[in-house]
């Protein structure tokens, strides 16, 4: 079924000034493992996750511990940590809200405190471009200063917004730590299992009748390369990270050979709500906004200040979910 396409590009060249050791939270997730694979060839990697790390390369030191526990500090004590990539964020829409909330926020707070205590020079926090939220009144290209409005319609991203804002205030409070907040567009790829890639994997995806918003996708390996690039000394601030361009949802589905089923908006929202409550689908009803309205960001700041450009073409990125 899947047409042959150019083999994935090789490993990125080591950016100058790669930290001697990098601690990665949430390393056991699909994206975390992809990042570890890229990173461990270039520097010493320490993993922290409450899940075991399946298929862990030998040279990675893994600490299986909850980020909220005091024992996390061992990961910092064992050998000095020069940089931290914090991507240990839980977003299971069916998880009780309080548990995820505490894990995400208390965990983030804990990790950032430990960074200060142990003299970590660089912190990269993984946020997401969905913090802006898909809205009819959005500009076509949202810049980093756009208010994070996603929560007014979609409470599930509240955690991510709070985390992003917490990291921003940390950035101002601790100028001695170079903090980078990375907001990538929808991450897709062969291993990630997030809402956008699961949606694109449906044979008969439901669409909102009469709506066809522009989408931005980034390949999982490109997203990991962006996180590695953010480790570059001197880089500090909030950055949108974009992939190879913008494309209407309908053209993405056509490229994947899907048979979309358009449903009128009011009916669709009621349907998804019922199905979600009955646990037939893992798509929260508010996710409908993402296939109805625009949430496209301007990634020029990261391109300018970090020299970012994705490796995968638009077509390769779309087809990576196959």
């Amino acid at each position, binding site marked *: 079924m899947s047409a042959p396409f150019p083999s994935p590009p090789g490993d990125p060249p080591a950016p100058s000034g790669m930290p001697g050791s990098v601690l990665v939270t949430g390393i056991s997730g699909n994206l975390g493992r992809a990042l570890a694979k890229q990173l461990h060839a270039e520097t010493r990697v320490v993993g922290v996750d409450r899940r075991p790390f399946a298929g862990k390369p030998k040279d990675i030191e893994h600490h299986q511990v909850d980020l909220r526990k005091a024992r996390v500090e061992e990961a910092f004590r064992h050998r000095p940590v020069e940089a931290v990539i914090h991507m240990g964020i839980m977003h299971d829409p069916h998880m009780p809200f309080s548990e995820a909330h505490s894990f995400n926020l208390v965990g983030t707070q804990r990790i950032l405190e430990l960074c200060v205590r142990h003299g970590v020079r660089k912190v990269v926090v993984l946020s997401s471009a969905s913090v802006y939220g898909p809205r009819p009144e959005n500009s076509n290209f949202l810049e980093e200063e756009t208010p994070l409005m996603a929560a007014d319609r979609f409470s599930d991203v509240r955690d991510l917004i709070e985390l992003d804002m917490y990291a921003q205030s940390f950035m101002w409070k601790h100028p001695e730590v170079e903090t980078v907040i990375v907001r990538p567009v929808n991450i897709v790829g062969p291993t990630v299992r997030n809402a956008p890639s699961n949606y694109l994997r449906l044979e008969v995806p439901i669409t909102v009748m009469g709506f066809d918003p522009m989408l931005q996708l980034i390949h999982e390996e490109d997203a990991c390369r962006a996180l590695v690039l953010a480790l570059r000394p001197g880089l500090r601030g909030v950055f949108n990270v974009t992939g190879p361009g913008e494309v209407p949802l309908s053209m993405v589905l056509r490229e994947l050979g899907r048979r979309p089923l358009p449903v009128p908006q009011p009916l669709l929202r009621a349907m998804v709500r019922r199905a979600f409550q009955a646990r037939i689908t893992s798509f929260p009803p508010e996710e409908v906004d993402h296939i109805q309205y625009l949430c496209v960001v301007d990634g020029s700041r990261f391109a300018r200040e970090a020299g970012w450009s994705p490796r995968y073409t*638009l077509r390769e990125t779309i087809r990576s979910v196959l």
Partner: protein
Amino acid sequence: MAPDLSEAVKGRLREWTYSLGGPGARERLEKLTPPRNEYGVDPYGFDTEYMVAAVAPLFWLYRKYFRVQVHGIEHVPAEGRALLVGNHSGQLPFDGAMIEVAFLLDRDPPRAIRALMDTWVPTLPFVSTFMARCGQVVGTPENCRRLLAADEALLVFPEGTRGLNKPFRERYQLQRFGLGFMRLALESGAPVIPVAVVGAEEQAPALFDLRPLAKLLSFPAWPVTPTLLPLPLPTRYHLHFGEPITFRGAPDEDDEQLERKVAEVESAVRALLERGLKERRHIFW
């Protein structure tokens, strides 16, 4: 099956577009080449191939229904940033559509004008997609800045729905102009080109606006016309373009100073309107 069908329909519509456009229309329209990716769209979602098919009904309205006459279109530069500022009328925004079609049919090389939409439009099924594929964007200041910096021409109706949905007794009376477009003109250095549309006011004479119903449906207005629906009558449209006016000043100057400059644009539009009304022989022909 379905894609084949829609491709066939698109092909037919494209042929219709070319035949309405007259001799050489195809070659002229092929000169429109916005930056496109491998899927044929620009970053805003503008798709010229889709547009050439989708505008066929608007071309028909332009040529056969409203029989639009264009005056002074040569005042609009062929390239470079520009702000077209016009009067808004007619209950349904056919005035904007006809101005854009004029730049596709009665101008060589054609120019794709970006009209600014109300934030209400992206909530409308089909309309939102049609507008985006035809290169229209929501009129946020960020969008305008970006497009002007890219040397595009924008079409602005500073009266907004105040002008569009005013009752018939106030026809050809300009409503209050917003100041936003002047800030953009000062910031970008784009010339302002006054535009007057004569004929749209009579297409759907509104007796009054049924505000409570509009509010209930979250529509900007609910005009009540003699036919009950705001369907346009076949009035003849006249589009008048005035000479470009370049303004100098700081974009963050006081509202008072901005208002003075905006008043200058208002009077230019009013003068064009008066001339257009004087020159018009009849509402319908």
